[in-house]
């Protein structure tokens, strides 16, 4: 069973309006690279020039923020659900 990745609305332009996509990556770092192969440009939206995850976007494996796991080395296994969640400010 592959890993489901939930794409937030602001990034769905890059994923051809898909709200979720599937990958088979072994960890979060690989997931970002795999996403960028399928959807070029998504990596620079998620990461800064140094490759660090931007400070207003979080990645969750299931319900857990990877900053409190092993950052981008956080392992992924079949059936995991990954959510990319950006800060949103509308009101």
């Amino acid at each position: 069973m592959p890993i489901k990745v939930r794409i937030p609305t602001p990034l769905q332009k890059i994923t051809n309006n898909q709200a979720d996509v599937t990958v088979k990556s072994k960890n979060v770092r690989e997931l970002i690279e795999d996403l960028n192969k399928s959807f070029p440009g998504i990596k620079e939206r998620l990461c800064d020039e140094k490759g660090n995850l931007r400070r207003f976007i979080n990645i969750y494996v299931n319900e857990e923020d990877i900053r409190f796991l092993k950052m981008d080395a956080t392992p992924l296994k079949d059936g995991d659900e990954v959510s990319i969640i950006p800060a949103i400010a509308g009101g």
Partner: protein
Amino acid sequence: MGLRDDQVERYSRQILLPHVGGLGQEKILAAKVLVIGAGGLGSPAALYLAAAGVGRIGVVDSDKVELNNLQRQVLHSTKTVGELKVESAKRTLAALNTDIEVIPYNMRLTSGNILDVIKGYDIIVDGSDNFPTRYLVNDACVLAKKPLSHGGIFRFDGQAITIVPGKSACYRCLFPEPPPPGLVPSCQEAGILGAVAGVIGVIQANEVLKLILGIGDTLTGKLLIFNALDSSFRSVKVPKNKDCPVCGEKPTVTRLIDYEEFCSLRRKDAK
């Protein structure tokens, strides 16, 4: 203090609730809540808080009502287009409930005035529409130790989290810094479905009522995520971050910051 007969009648359907009762209603009537932004989120939040009998409601906004607001900002109406939002809000809330005090603040919050404004309130509701205000409100609430209900919306998405300073994660524990200018489109550019604002604003009112009453579990330590297209509610865990710039062990944000306003549309409006 005791409830008058008309109050017993007005609030009877919530006084009936075992978690509320007469004592709970008295707590609601004694509560002071500040609603920041009389827009898409602040409108439903303030309406439900006023209806429930929150005794003092402050409303902060610096804008005037525009026709394009009415699709979601249910405090305002066709005949109040052109009026100050805080005046329009005050009239709507006062008409709904004569029992409460509504205090308008026709101003833009800054590092220089926010602590003075929030000082007189028990709980703060953030329904603002831009990142600089949201980070300012979070930091001020952390510094002043005021519980904060945060809500945000974008297109078909909504987010809500409740922050009890010193006890639960703050907004910077979740997202340490705002995006740089230009990277994220604003509501004005991106669009919003009015009902999404209603869903999140009412959740914020519900959070405030639970905080006042001391009942249930609030959205502390978790971010609620709503999507209107698949009608889904999910939540993710938001632990306190020991490296948080404002509430962590070694805070780097020790005084309030006015981030650069980066919505070009708004900048133009302000001139």
